[in-house]
Structure formats: C-alpha cells, structure tokens
C-alpha cells in the first residue's frame, strides 16, 4: 500500500506493531492505541519515533497528554463510508493544535483526498497505486471552499468580502 | 456492501434467472448461458437448483463492469415454454411502469 506524504509517494519510515509484537530495538514505530496507552512511558523513552494508531470510536481527547511527544497519529477509515476520523482529525489539528504527522489509514481512495486534506491529514496510506499517483492532480481539483477549517484555505464567504472591499477601494 | 454471494444462503423455490441493470445505461438485463447479458428475458439462463443459481450469480457478480447489483429472481415457465417474470416487481422491471407516463398521456 503506497504512502503519500508531503504530496509525494514515499517510503514508510514507520513499522506497524500489533498489540503483541515484540518491541524492536530501534526505528520508528506505529503502535495501536491500547498498547500505547498501556506502555506509553517505556515506548516514549526508546530511541526512534513513536506514532499511535487511533481507532475512530475512541475519544481522541485521551491522546491529548501525549501529543507533544508523539511523531504521528494514524486515524482509521474502516470503510470510506465511515467518516468519524474526519472529526477526530479536525479536533487534533484545530482544538488540540497537534502539528505532527496525521495519517489516514484504512480504505483511503482518491475521491476522499480533498476532504482529508481540508480536515488536516498530511499523510495517506492509499489503497490503490493509481490513486496514490494521482494525488497531486486530485488535490488541486477544487479551488473553492465554503467552510473554514484548520487548513487555512480561504473560504468563499471571506473571498467575497475581500472582493467587496477591493472593489470598494477602487470606486 | 457485502457481496450478494455472502448475503445469505441461496435457496430457490423454482425456476429462476439472474438479473441486474446494465452499467452504462441502467437498463434491465438478464444473465445468459453464454456468459453475457441480454435485455430479453427469453434469452436468460434458467437455473433450477441452488448450486446452479449460485454458479450463475457468481459469474454475474464477477462482471462488475458490465452490470450492477445482480440477484436471483423467480420466473414462471408456461406450458408453451415461455418465460415470464415470477412476481410483480419483476413484471414491472420487464414491462415498465403500470401507469401512463405523462409524456404519453
């Protein structure tokens, strides 16, 4: 499954651990939420970055105390129809000011990229190679956005205000 | 969505066909014995037991590009061998709405 990060297909530096996989000596690891919360202290002490795989039915607020120490949060789309992780992503970015990698995992398809980018995701485990390759093209598909989110894109309402004011200056 | 093959045990009560809607235009089609689709019920492959039904449906499901949402539908076969839809829904799918369409009224 290709990983898109920073707009490009890249190698995944993180190794995913299951609940019971022995802890590797070094290297970056992605750990399931339950294991992370149980072993947080030990995990954070070791060399190598730590990321957490957070299920979409668990309150993301539980992760807040650790946000400064983790390098990645992977949110889960069990199917592309299940949109809970969009809310979790926005909360992480906009309410809890999380600035690390925010990764979309699970059923991630091309047609969700724009929504995911707007919700704050910056890394994508894409299901299909062709979709991963089309990432940049797809991400540019829309130039107009009606809602304000933490991605900083200007909304239609505000663009109109700018236009109004610039017209006001001109006349 | 689970595949129609997994939905439930396939049990048929009598002669049946596999029907779906053609992907590019949506019209009603029936699975033929020749691995293809036809708009004519008379060209549909008739299955008479669960194994046959299952096999025909599996073949239909595999053609996801050709047609959407295949399922098994009952038919009645007259003394003259003519195939007729087995219920009202299938009758309507075959012959169209039971009401005048406004453009034709």
């Amino acid at each position, binding site marked *: 499954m290709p990983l898109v990060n920073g707009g490009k297909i890249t190698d995944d530096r993180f190794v995913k651990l299951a609940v019971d996989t022995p802890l590797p000596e070094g290297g970056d690891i992605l750990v399931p939420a339950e294991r992370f919360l149980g072993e947080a202290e030990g995990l954070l002490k070791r060399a190598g970055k730590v990321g957490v795989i957070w299920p979409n039915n668990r309150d993301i607020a539980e992760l807040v105390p650790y946000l400064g120490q983790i390098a990645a949060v992977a949110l889960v789309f069990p199917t592309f129809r299940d949109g809970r992780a969009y*809310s979790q992503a926005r909360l992480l970015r906009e309410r809890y000011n999380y600035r690390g990698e925010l990764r979309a995992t699970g059923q991630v398809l091309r047609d969700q990229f724009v929504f995911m980018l707007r919700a704050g995701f910056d890394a994508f485990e894409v299901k299909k190679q062709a979709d991963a390759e089309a990432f940049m093209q797809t991400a540019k598909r829309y130039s107009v*956005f009606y809602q304000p989110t933490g991605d900083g894109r200007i909304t239609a309402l505000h663009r109109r205000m700018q236009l109004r004011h610039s017209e006001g200056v001109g006349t | 969505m689970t595949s129609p093959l997994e939905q439930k045990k396939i049990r048929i009560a009598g002669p049946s066909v596999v029907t779906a809607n053609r992907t590019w235009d949506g019209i009603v089609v029936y699975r033929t014995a020749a691995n293809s689709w036809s708009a004519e019920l008379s060209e549909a492959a008739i299955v008479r037991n669960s194994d046959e039904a299952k096999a025909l449906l599996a073949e239909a499901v595999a053609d996801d590009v050709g047609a959407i949402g295949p399922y098994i539908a009952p038919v009645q076969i007259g003394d003259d061998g003519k195939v007729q839809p087995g219920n009202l829904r299938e009758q309507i799918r075959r012959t169209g709405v039971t009401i005048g369409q406004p453009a034709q009224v």
Partner: protein
Amino acid sequence: MYAYDEIDRTLVNERVSEFRDQVKRRLSGELTEDEFKILRLQNGVYLQLHAYMFRVAIPYGTLATNQMRALAHVARKYDRGYGHFTTRQNIQFNWIKLAELPDALEDLAKVGIHAMQTSGNNMRNVTSDQWAGVAPGEIEDPRIWSELIRQHTTLHPEFSFLPRKFKIAITASDHDRAAIKIHDIGLRLIKNEKGETGFEVLVGGGLGRTPFIAKTIKHFVHGRDILSYIEAILRVYNQYGRRDNIYKARIKILVHELGIEKFSREVEDEWQHIRNSSLQIDEEVIEDIRSRFTYPVYEKLPHMPDELRQAAADPDFEAWRKNSVAPHKVQGYSIVTISLKPTGGPPGDATAEQMDALADLADKYSFGEIRVGHEQNLALPHVAKRDLPALWKALDKLGLATPNVNLITDIIACPGLDYCSLANARSIPIAQELTRRFANHELANLIGRLHINISGCINACGHHHVGHIGILGVEKNGEEVYQITIGGRADENAALGTLIGPGVKFDEVADVVEDIVEAYLALRERPEELFMDTVKRLGVEPFKERVYATR
C-alpha cells in the same frame, strides 16, 4: 432570486469535472460499483428498477425561468420528456443513462443548478417555505439563511460521510409550509426581544421505519451563531450516531437513545468550543448573500382590479382562484399555486412542454420566478391580480389549473414500485384512482382540506405518517397490502397518524378512503370542522368501525 457568482459557478464546474472523471473510471472498471456507489449518490444518482434515477436540487424551492428551461431540456434530451418534483424541493428524472450524466450535469451547471448531495449520507438539499419572501406576516426571507447553510453544507470536509442522510428545513412564518418538524434539523426563524434574528432549533425529526417529531433543542440561537451551532450538532452526530444498523443511524435515533437533555448537553459542550471561531457570521456576510437575492420592483396596484371583478362571473375561474390563489405581502399581487395533481395523473410529474410553458408564463406574469413546494406542486410567487384571469386560461390549456390545492386529490405520493427499487408496493396507481374517485370538484370542496400521503414502503418518502390520511404499501405473501393511518399532520402542529386496523388490498384502498371520508362527513359537527379536527375530537374508533364493519 439568488444569483450565483463566479465563486459558486467555479465550484459547481469543478464538481462536474470531478464526476465526469469518476464516471469514466467506473465505466472503465477502475472503480468498482461498491466504490462508485457512494460517489454517484453524492451526485444524486440512484439505481432504480428500470434505469438510473437522477435527482437535481432546487435549493429552498426557488427556480429562475432559465433554470426551469434547463430542467425541461434535460427531460427532453437525456430522459423521456418529463420529470418528477419530490417532497424535498428536488426534481427527479427516471430514465437517465450513466454515460450521459456528466453532460446533463454540465448543461445544468450553466444555469447554476447542481445535484450535489441530493442523496447519500451527507447533508441534503436545504429546503424552505415555497412562499418565502412573499408570504404575508413572514418575519424575514428565510432563503438568505437557507443559502448561507446551503453553502456551508456543500462538500463539507468533515460531514460528507455521516452515519446517514441529514436534512435541514427552515421556515419564517407561523404556518409551517416547510415541514420542519419532520427534519433532522428544523429551524424556525424568530426575533429575540432586541429584535435580532435567530432561530428556534429543533432536532431529531424524521419518518421512515421509526418516525419521530423533532424536539426543540434550543429556543434561541442567534443568527450569527447558527453555523457553529449546526456544526456542533453535526459533530456530535458524526461521532456518536450509530453506524451498525442502517435503520438506527439517523440522528433521531441518537437523540431518542440519549434523550434530548443529554444530547443537547453534548451539543452545548461542543458549541462552546467553536462558537467564537471563524464560523461566526458577521452582518456583512449576511448582507453580501442578501444582496445577491433580487426582488421584483412591484407596481402600485389596486386590491381589486377590474379584470378580476369581470372574471368572477366565470365559475370555473372562481373555483380555481378560491382554491389556488393566496394572498401576497404586496397589495395587488398574489401567490399562485400550480397543481401538479391532475385527475388520473402521477402526483408531481411535469412534462418538458409544461416546464417550458410555465417558464414562459413566469416570465410574463411572475417576474421570471417559479417555486417548488414540498407538497409536490409549483407556485408562481408574484402574480399581479389583474393577470390572474389570463394566467388561469393559459394554465388551463396546459392542464395545470386543476383547482385541488390542499384538497383530497392533492395527494403526496412517492414513486413506489413502478419506479423505485426499495418499494414493496405501488403508490402512483393508488393516487391516480383516488383522484378519479374524488374528481368532482364540488365534492372535494365539500370535504375541505384533507391531505392524503402515500408511501410504497417503510422508508416513507410519501410522508404517510403525517398524512391526514396516510397510506403505506407493504408486501405480504407476494401481494401488495396497504396500511391506513389517520390523524397525522406535517405542519406546525405536526403529529403522527394512528393505524386504523389491518391492511387492505390494492383494489380496496380507494373504497376504504371513501368510507373514511363518508364517516367524516357524517361525523363532523359543522362544515367548517376539518377532517383533522374531527379525528382529533373523536379519535380513530368511529372511522375504524365504519371501515371494518363490512370487511
């Protein structure tokens, strides 16, 4: 009228090109049907019995004449020459080809019409009062706010994959023509004691398998906070709404399971986090939207023009005027409802020729504006009273002057088993038969206001629960069987109907309705007592007795 600007147009065009790409990928096999289904639904494309069905949004029920002509064009070029107006200010085309859909969307985009989110588990078309902006006594035009919410809910990055569909309706009149109490969120526009605009917010209404009347979650939300408050409701719903069972996924179930108090506390908590964010709307933003709604320059006209006085001698004209013409907020003008319920016709259908001709009439008589109401009728919102006789003649020629608005033959019906892949029983033929039984205008008038609603399955697209007489078609042992309820209503006093007894067969439905009506005529205290009021006074028993005495 609301005029799209370059920004709105760009978005719609971007959406069309995205969908064109999605259709291409589907037809080439790059996308499976499972993957494509949700994408097509987000553009209003269903698969029905005979073909794809294409649902186009008519936000808050306002149409310009060039838009109506574009709908006629789609009906003619890509479909079979007609369309079906639905209960949620949409129009449906029943015979569209997937391969041609991107072209149809592109043709509609040219006049600012789209099909975004007319199906799927997202925020649907925002609906409102079809008399918005012209109804006497209205607090203010609710379409300004509808448009604000329409924009906010379009391609929302967080709420495009909700547990289930989500519908918002807005009214600004005492009499609720938008059926807000059967919506996921109902907004009643009100003023606070300082004269500021805000909303009573209702939540958790809906029909279907488990019907609920919406409950008030907050008595006053200031206009500037309405987007953040809606966002808070949606965020709670998106996270906690059930996704394990499609029949329990609507917000009404969440509200019911948590209880309105707990649900409203969750919303309130969330809202406190976001109410002072960029979601807050300043007056200038509202002004900007308001400035793109244009209103007619009305003439000063007499209350009772000569043309109207003279036409009053014609009993047919008078029957129509009394039935279909309503007061306008401006003297000398009227709101004209156009019945799409001709005797023997499918409720809500209009041909391309009728749509074109109506557009011409709206240009001539209604400042180029047409409205669509949830009762599946149309309206011309600004007709000078002096033009009423000429308009009536023209409508009559088109078969659009049936004087049955709000009467027993003004039936709301879903497409039913004739079109719909979900249906268990037919709806339209039942409606057709009833319009024939009660075709006599004097009889219908004598009965008075009476709404019949017909659904062909439990999903209740025909709103049978809130029909004065509700008819629900089900399937039993391979046969169509219809359950009859009475006493429902969809207005500000919304209520669910009560079942009168065992289901009846297809051929018996019209007889049963006749029995119910006869019972009502015999039981009412005086001619002014409406069917609803008689049912309220006496309950269902006497009706039940009458219907089942001989069955």
